[in-house]
């Protein structure tokens, strides 16, 4: 694993570095993956779960999680859903375009701590990209983990991200033949779709895991995460083994501005990855 660093040494964390788009992959109607290379200086080493601030010159800057392989930091890979001004500009970028990058910032998934036990990864919608680096890391050190499951919920089959990798992971993540580690479900399907239909939380009650030795990682809409936590707790997974990534919006990314304050935490520097007990008192409140 690469050395954890919070931002590139010797670099002003407020100063974006230019990165060039080497590949833009249209994943779905509203999601694009950008592969970026530093125009100068070292590549950006990161830990799974960390994010960068991506700056589109003349438009604005947004936090985006890193979705690439932490063992291959030469290319910075980020997956973006078009929701507003800046993400729309990012999704329109093509090969050769330049963006500003600050980071990496934030906390990371507890992959060291999860060693030796089972791992349940729960992703909803655009929640899969921030979890992909954790999956890559587990695949690199597969023997260090027990049973590993990816539960992934999307709106429709056309919204599923990384379908080819999902198929590959069905074999490469398996702890034993026929284990079916990748379980995908969609909210809505007509014809053509041969998988499950229903909410991602309905996949939890029947999951064969050893709850006391299970770590759960989740990213998705906050309501989905609340229901996911409730189902995982019903299975007996200790609260301190439940980790979520809080993707509330932020501005400075280094704990100065307070824009992303969530109860006593600043998502940008204490998060985005937080253990459930740290957010338990805040996650159901509206005005935090």
């Amino acid at each position, binding site marked *: 694993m690469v050395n954890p660093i919070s931002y590139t040494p010797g670099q002003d964390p407020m100063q974006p570095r230019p990165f060039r788009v080497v590949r833009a992959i249209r994943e779905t109607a509203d999601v694009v993956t950008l592969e970026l290379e530093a125009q100068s200086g070292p590549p950006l080493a990161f830990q799974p779960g960390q994010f960068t601030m991506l700056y589109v010159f003349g438009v604005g800057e947004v936090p985006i999680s890193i979705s690439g392989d932490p063992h291959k930091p030469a290319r910075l890979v980020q997956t973006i859903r078009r929701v507003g001004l800046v993400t729309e500009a990012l999704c329109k970028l093509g090969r050769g375009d330049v963006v500003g990058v600050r980071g990496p910032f934030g906390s990371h998934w507890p992959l060291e701590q999860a060693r030796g036990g089972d791992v349940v990864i729960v992703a909803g919608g655009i929640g899969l990209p921030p979890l992909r680096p954790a999956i890559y890391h587990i695949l690199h050190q597969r023997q260090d983990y027990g049973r590993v499951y990816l539960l992934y919920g999307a709106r429709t089959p056309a919204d599923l991200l990384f379908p080819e990798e999902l198929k590959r992971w069905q074999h490469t993540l398996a702890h034993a033949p026929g284990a079916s580690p990748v379980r995908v479900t969609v909210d809505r399907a*007509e014809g053509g779709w041969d*998988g*499950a239909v229903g909410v991602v939380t309905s996949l939890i009650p029947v999951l064969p895991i050893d709850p006391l030795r299970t770590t759960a990682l989740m990213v*998705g809409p906050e309501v*989905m995460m609340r229901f996911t936590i409730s189902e995982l707790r019903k299975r007996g997974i200790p609260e301190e083994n439940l980790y979520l990534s809080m993707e509330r919006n932020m501005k400075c990314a280094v704990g100065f501005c307070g824009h992303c304050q969530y109860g006593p935490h600043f998502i940008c520097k204490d998060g985005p990855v937080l253990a459930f007990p740290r957010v338990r008192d805040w996650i159901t409140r509206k005005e935090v």
Partner: protein
Amino acid sequence: MSKAGLEHYLGEHPFFRGMRPKDLAWLAELAEPLALEVGDYLYREGDESKDFYLIQEGLVRLEIHTPGRGELVIQTLGPGEVLGWSVMLPETRKTFDARIFQATRLLAFDAAAVRKHSEEDHHFGYELCKRFSRVIGERLQATRLRLLDLYGQPH
């Protein structure tokens, strides 16, 4: 599976766990194992609700036919899940088709026998009603979550 094996299996299953040994023995006696192939219908819309089912293996799709749009999938149910919560109500009819999507093994329990036994032994009936209430609650919660369209575009 032997009768003793079946009793043990039901006792370990999250749906029946905690029921009295004599209830598990009664249910094991009633359980009828079924194996269905892809494309088979377990039941169709309008059929009388004759059984409830415990899926052991496979995938069952609840569908409804809509003119012009074909089969719409309401939900899929897989291993460990219970299908047919309406059996506790007499004279109900199925509101969806249940079609086999992956080769399925399941246990079927005769609804009329379960209702009759519940009337005779209210403790048994109450335990079963509690369990079906939980299933109904879970389905309702799942439906509400899907109504929220959580993965849709923020507005």
